[in-house]
């Protein structure tokens, strides 16, 4: 029996997303997974010194990125935001250039993997110091407010561990006091390297902390990109319309070790991971779109082949690039020639 659009609507709560947007989210998730795997593969092959994975965060990031308006909003991400970076417009070649630390990397091969920067796209440069970037996100939102640039908002993302930091607290508090256009997205994957959430906070949910700042919060299913999109949409609309900041907690899971240098067998059980794997957001969302008739199995296979090809091409293209010149080590310390002793 041919499905009508009404039946499709009832089969999939889509939060106003078009078919095209739903497929775009799936593609983002598949690409994230592929690029994540590629980073770990390249590391195990000895081709790159380090990689970080966002496996298990795909739905959060695909959903959140869909609320970002290019050319208007700013993303101040953390180091586990591959999908957000892709979703706001960064290319696999940029990601691979960063992994290989090649000249074509926007930071000139300086930054650790996953520490992206792209001013043109509105992706702010970050350090590895957890939650330090949250204050910058607030400053950017304050600049929007100061210049009366209505309709612009900032997404500031962190994991749940970052919410233990003083600078996270100071950031949320400042944004709340000044009612700034910003959304604090907490990707709660339950683990900060080896430290579980229960060792980070007494409250059951990060979102509980919002009450302490007098701002609204939401908890969403971070295994579901549509649920994350819906929660983020409300928060971003609030920010854009002068309603101030929101704390959005997206519950997800980190399937891989913290990084290629970490071994999670030392601190968490395989059973726990296997249990969480049953909720793997990528095949689950793919299946939902097939069941809802948004895509068919052939289109799904085609999407997967497409992102694999794109990843392979970007890998080869990035690997072929030269390293940055050694002379570049000395540039961009400050504007102009850098000398601590002036002649």
């Amino acid at each position, binding site marked *: 029996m041919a499905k009508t659009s009404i039946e499709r609507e009832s089969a999939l709560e889509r939060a106003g997303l078009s078919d095209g947007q739903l497929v775009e989210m799936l593609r983002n998730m598949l690409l994230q997974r592929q690029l994540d795997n590629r980073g770990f593969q390249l590391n195990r092959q000895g081709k790159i010194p380090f990689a970080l994975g966002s496996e298990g965060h795909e739905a959060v990031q695909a959903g959140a990125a869909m609320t970002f308006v290019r050319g208007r909003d*700013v993303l*101040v991400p953390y180091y586990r935001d591959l999908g957000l970076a892709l979703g706001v417009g960064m290319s696999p070649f940029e990601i691979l250039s960063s992994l290989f630390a090649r000249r074509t990397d*926007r*930071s*000139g091969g*300086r*930054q650790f993997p996953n*520490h992206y*920067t*792209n*001013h043109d796209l509105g992706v*702010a*440069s970050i*350090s590895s*110091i957890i939650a*330090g*970037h*949250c*204050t*910058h*996100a*607030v*400053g*950017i*939102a*304050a*600049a*929007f407010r*100061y210049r009366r640039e209505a309709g612009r908002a900032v997404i500031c993302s962190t994991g749940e561990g970052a919410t233990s930091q*003083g*600078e996270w607290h*100071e*950031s949320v*508090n*400042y944004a709340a*006091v000044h009612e700034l256009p910003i959304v604090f997205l907490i990707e709660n994957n339950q683990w900060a390297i080896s430290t579980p959430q229960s060792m980070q906070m007494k409250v059951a949910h990060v979102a509980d902390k919002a009450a302490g700042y007098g701002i609204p919060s939401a908890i969403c299913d971070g295994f579901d990109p549509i649920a994350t999109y819906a929660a983020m949409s409300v928060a971003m609309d609030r920010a854009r319309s002068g309603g101030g900041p929101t704390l959005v907690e997206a519950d997800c899971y980190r399937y891989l070790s913290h990084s290629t240098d970490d071994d999670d067998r030392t601190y968490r059980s395989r059973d726990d991971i296997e249990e969480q794997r049953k909720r793997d957001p990528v095949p689950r969302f793919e299946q939902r779109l097939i069941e809802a008739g948004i895509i068919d199995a052939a289109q799904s296979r085609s999407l997967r082949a497409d992102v694999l090809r794109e990843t392979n091409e970007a890998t080869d293209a990035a690997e072929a690039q030269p390293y940055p010149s050694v002379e*570049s080590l000395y*540039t*961009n*310390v*400050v*504007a102009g020639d*850098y*000398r*601590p*002793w*002036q*002649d």
Partner: protein
Amino acid sequence: MAGLKGSPATATAPSAGSTVMTNVEAVRATLHDALARDERVLIMGEDVGARGNVFLITKGFLEEFGPERVIDTPLAEASIVGVAIGMAMEGLRPIAEIQFADFIYPAFNQIVGEAAKTRYRSNGDYTCPLVIRTPYGGGVRGALSHSVSIEALFYHVPGLTILAPSTPADVKGLLNAAIECPDPVLFLEHKKTYRSVKGEVPDGYYTIPIGKADVKKAGSQVTVVSYGFNAHQALDAANRLEADGVSIEVIDLRSIRPMDKTTILDSVRKTRKLLIIHEDNKFGGIGAEISAMVAEEALFDLDAPIRRLCGPDVPAMGYALPLEEEFMISTEQMLTAMRELAAF
């Protein structure tokens, strides 16, 4: 204390005419003009609004420029600097105030880990044109946590510029230069000079180049390198020794990072003797770097060992007057050191 004549000789086109001001008045006037001149400039910090800053530097600014440009922040130094970094990354020209230099430690990460590295880590994709102003230094009964010198903690850090002018004319020219600077600047104001130092300040807008020291007094027998409150004492001592026929050259660094190699070396090669004076403690202080540079570049031009007269290596000066006086370098100590070195 007789104020040093601020030397605007290297300034860019000061207009005719000048006004006598104290250091604190020069800070205030320069900030006021910056707010009036450039809409990208904001002032943010603890109690800078209704109170007008604890030294009344920004008194009246809130009424004149409004709460969007003169921002009373929550009491949290890391975010005062961090939020200002975000504003700077987004194209504004924030001037963040740390109420006392002693309170800057919570912001250390933001200054060293973030502001100083923003341009570098993004390879110029993002920049951080930020000024952090803070009153420092002792001799004002500030005890352990309202008296410290912090310059040595930060001058090790590439990417930061550190200025410590001592005269009103230099305050104005260098604060303007700091606001123009496309990179983060730590601007240090010695509290004891705020109201004790007066001088002529050229009218109109001008800047003094960052990284240029100023020879406040020419002399032939000993080079004294100092900055801040100590520079005034050193000049006072040098002027007194002139009557005894001892000729001392006094260099006021003004800029601590970058530092002016040429002015120091030219002077040392002339006098062949070097005395470095700073209130900050000796071990690992600014004087250590100057000593090393002079030893590397001009060791065989020296007729005497390099000498440093610095604050003692204790955590801070005490609240009790004798403890504060023991910590601070006296003009008499400077006179003795200058005489001894001249006679060496």
